[in-house]
């Protein structure tokens, strides 16, 4: 793996250390290793001069967020130095970063919903004397800052009643009010409308012209091209390189972002797909929060693995939860086998033969304080052989657990061990064991190998392929392209809640090619996306 991270546009290290104000913020050989051994950032050298808009791009897990958190004092580097205002600093928390003039706008905004915009802007440093808050001064300050920066807000409106865009502008004003000289924007456009994005960019440019240094984290290459002066690309924790935006194309950036040297080879035979098991037509989902879906249509046949690629947050979670019955689609038809599942509850989905490995096992994949044995039976605790005539037999539950522990090589001394005490990989095995042992007709596997060790990863791959060969339809959702390409017989790409790519042959497919679709550089047209799908005629119209 590429450890040093010295890319084409990256200046050598000595220059970063010997600064005298020509650098607003810099990282010097910064490495971050988490307590669980995950190395999120590896020896990164990055320096940003004052008055520059620097985009930092990279795939999920490339380490951008961790790096930014170190600049803002939310994380401390394991080794290396963080330089702010020309000197090496130890940032113990956001407070010390704020004091040094670093402001950060988080993806999940840190605002008090019942407060007004002005109150949020001044929170913690309220104007006024003798313990009182001068409300008028707060409004005036906010209005003045808004006028100066071009970030239009209504100072007197309650935050929970204004648009997401205005909330974000409020966050930026908050940083400005604290005299930030460096502003970190973490995926600021993810929640904005195109017009709001335009306005934000105009404001950011104005700030830059006033001397502000802006670090702009994003996946959206088009926006990066539009807003930034330079782009730094991260991959697998390392800095791949920094290029002047003028010299970069979306394609060249995508090439730098995607793909890793380590190839993944899973021994699998060609798929022998038979009849269609999952049939999704005209699916749309109106999300109150999160990503909405529209015009989703695809098939998954028994005996094939269909991968779903996409930058995280483009609708994968929503799609998986709809298919598993945890969310109700707004419109559209979903048929699994012969069953129309769109109106069923979760238990109904499970009865229809759907297994689901959820993306966040700690959230809903397991009851952490309960035993392995209990965690393995949540979908079958009320029927034979475990339960008969309203009685659940603990001995049967235990025997069931021992069989699966054996079969799925779950490393544990006893079935009564609480799941919480297992490692990530082992915990995932418990979940996979439960879902696969139900003999699902359709298996939805979401981020199956996230945070698991290499051994468990291999194991998951083998099991997925085995399930496919046994006749299951497998829908594999992952943020890891390498994994998707290694396992998928066919591949779909989701972007902004729509299917934008469909590859029926993955043999010659490269990560870079798929990356172009994920990043919105290219897309397939509708004919290609729906080619060969029987029309929705047989779905009941009413």
């Amino acid at each position, binding site marked *: 793996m590429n450890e040093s991270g010295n890319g084409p546009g990256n200046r050598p290290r000595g220059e970063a250390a010997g600064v005298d104000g020509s650098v607003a913020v810099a990282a010097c050989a910064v490495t971050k290793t988490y307590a*669980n051994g995950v190395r999120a950032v590896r020896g990164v050298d990055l320096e940003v001069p004052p008055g520059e808009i620097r985009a930092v791009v990279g795939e999920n897990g490339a380490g951008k967020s961790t790096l930014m958190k170190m600049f803002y004092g939310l994380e401390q580097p394991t080794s290396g130095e963080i330089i702010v205002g020309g000197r090496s600093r130890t940032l113990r928390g956001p407070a010390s970063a704020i004091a040094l003039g670093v402001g950060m706008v988080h993806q999940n905004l840190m605002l008090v919903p019942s407060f007004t915009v002005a109150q949020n802007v001044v929170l913690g440093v309220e104007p006024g004397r003798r313990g009182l808050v001068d409300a008028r001064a707060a409004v005036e300050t906010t209005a003045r800052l808004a006028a100066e920066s071009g970030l239009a807000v209504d100072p007197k409106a309650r935050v929970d009643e204004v648009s997401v865009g205005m909330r974000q502008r409020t966050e930026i004003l908050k940083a400005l009010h604290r005299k930030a000289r460096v502003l970190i924007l973490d995926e600021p456009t993810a929640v904005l409308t195109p017009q709001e994005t335009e306005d934000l960019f105009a404001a950011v440019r104005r700030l830059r012209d006033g001397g502000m240094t802006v670090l702009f984290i994003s996946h959206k290459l088009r926006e990066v091209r539009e807003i930034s002066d330079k782009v730094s690309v991260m991959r697998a924790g390392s800095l791949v390189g920094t290029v002047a935006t003028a010299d970069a194309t979306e394609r060249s950036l995508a090439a730098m972002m995607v793909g890793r040297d380590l190839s993944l080879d899973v021994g699998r035979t060609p798929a022998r797909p038979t009849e269609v098991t999952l049939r999704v037509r005209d699916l749309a989902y109106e999300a109150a929060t999160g990503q909405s879906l529209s015009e989703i249509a695809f098939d998954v046949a028994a005996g094939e693995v269909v991968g779903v690629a996409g930058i995280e947050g483009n609708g994968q979670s929503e799609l998986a939860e709809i298919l598993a019955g945890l969310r109700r689609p707004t419109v559209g038809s979903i048929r699994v086998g012969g069953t129309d599942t769109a109106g069923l509850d979760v238990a109904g989905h499970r009865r229809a033969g759907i297994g689901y490995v959820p993306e966040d096992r700690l959230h809903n994949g397991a009851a952490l*304080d309960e035993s392995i044995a*209990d965690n393995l039976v949540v979908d079958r605790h009320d029927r034979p052989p475990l339960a008969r005539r309203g009685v*659940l037999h603990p001995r049967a539950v235990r025997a069931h657990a021992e069989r699966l522990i054996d079969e799925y090589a779950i490393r544990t001394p006893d079935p009564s061990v609480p799941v919480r005490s297992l490692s990530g990989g*082992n915990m995932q095995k418990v979940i996979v064991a439960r879902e696969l042992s139900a003999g699902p007709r359709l298996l939805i596997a979401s981020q199956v190998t996230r*945070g*698991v060790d290499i051994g468990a990863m291999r194991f998951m791959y083998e099991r997925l392929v085995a399930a496919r060969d046994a006749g299951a339809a497998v829908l594999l959702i992952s*943020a890891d392209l390498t994994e998707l390409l290694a396992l998928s017989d066919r591949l779909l790409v989701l972007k902004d809640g729509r299917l934008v790519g469909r590859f029926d042959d993955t043999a010659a497919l490269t990560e870079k090619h798929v990356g172009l679709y994920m990043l919105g550089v290219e897309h397939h047209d509708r004919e290609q996306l729906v080619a060969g799908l029987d029309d929705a005629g047989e779905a009941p119209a009413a």
Partner: protein
Amino acid sequence: MTTAPTTRVEREDRREYRATRRRDLAVDLSMTLATILAALAIGFLVMLLTGNDPVQAYEAMLTGPLDRSFRVGRWLEDATTLTLLGLSVAIPFRARQISLGAESQVYAGALAAATVAIFLPLPPVAAVVVPMVAAATAGAGMGFVPGAMKARLGANEIVATLMLNAIVVRVYDYLVNGPLKEPGSSAVHSKSIQQDSVLTPLTEWFGIPLGRANVGLFLMLLTAVALWLLITRTPLGYRIRMTGSNPDFAEYGGIRVPRAIEWSFVIGGAVAGLAGAHLVQGVYGRLEPGLAGSLAFEGIVVALLARNNPLVVVVAGLFYSYLRAGGDIMEQQTDVGTEIVVVIQAVIVLLVTAQALPDLLKRRIARRQRRQPIQGDAR
């Protein structure tokens, strides 16, 4: 890039696991014991500081209840009600529902049992059973209201149960003072229940005076075992446990979480209703003002101390009632007020809820023990 090898070591050795489990259990047990001892020590200090003789007081309190057979009876009779009320909140607690509604449920149960047992002529066995069924039903109904409000609407169950308590206690008070008051009596209470509805006193069984203790004791033990079986051996119990442990997981697994929550309230309510029946049919033989006293809230304490395990609730209930009974005897024999028992109980609750304490201790012990084998392995 999604992963890096994790450094965690899996504990694969079954023997070591068993040892760990034994150790955790030992820590839990000794923590419970230490909690009780600490509370008793604080009681000791309080008595000392208030100019009483704590040794004499504790002697009376801790040996008193076993002194005479009728005192044993007093203890068992109290323990029966208290344990039933502890069980009644342990079930919703298992679903992680903070139900404080035992008070409304026990009074509803008492009212139902008394109404049937006073006014409805029934053949011998039915005369005992039907009022109890009525009490359980009434209690379950009282449980259903906050349960459904929580499960279907997401209404805060603490406020709902407190309001229901306030309402039912007042209605009860009205009925005992009004429509159900024994005509012509100067004291406020209802007519006595029919003789056939009385739960047989234990005195008749064992031939020694056991006060008002009655066969309700065995009913309580049966209920505890039944609830333990419900929790550990039935699909519904499993659903209640999973709902309490991680509702998102339960929902993901196909469990209807709102139904599980509702059932936990209904079952708890039925058990509290039975406690009301015990008070009417076993203890007082009629309705009296405020007949449940502070037992409903102390049931919460009992359930907490027992970590909501039905079988342990019995032990905790017997222990608490023992303290209560001992406190009364202590007050008779010394100058120390029985209220010191409530203080001791309160200290126990506060220590039990301070969750960081045992975890802190467990972690420290684990760290010390882990260090040792590593040194041994170094050879």
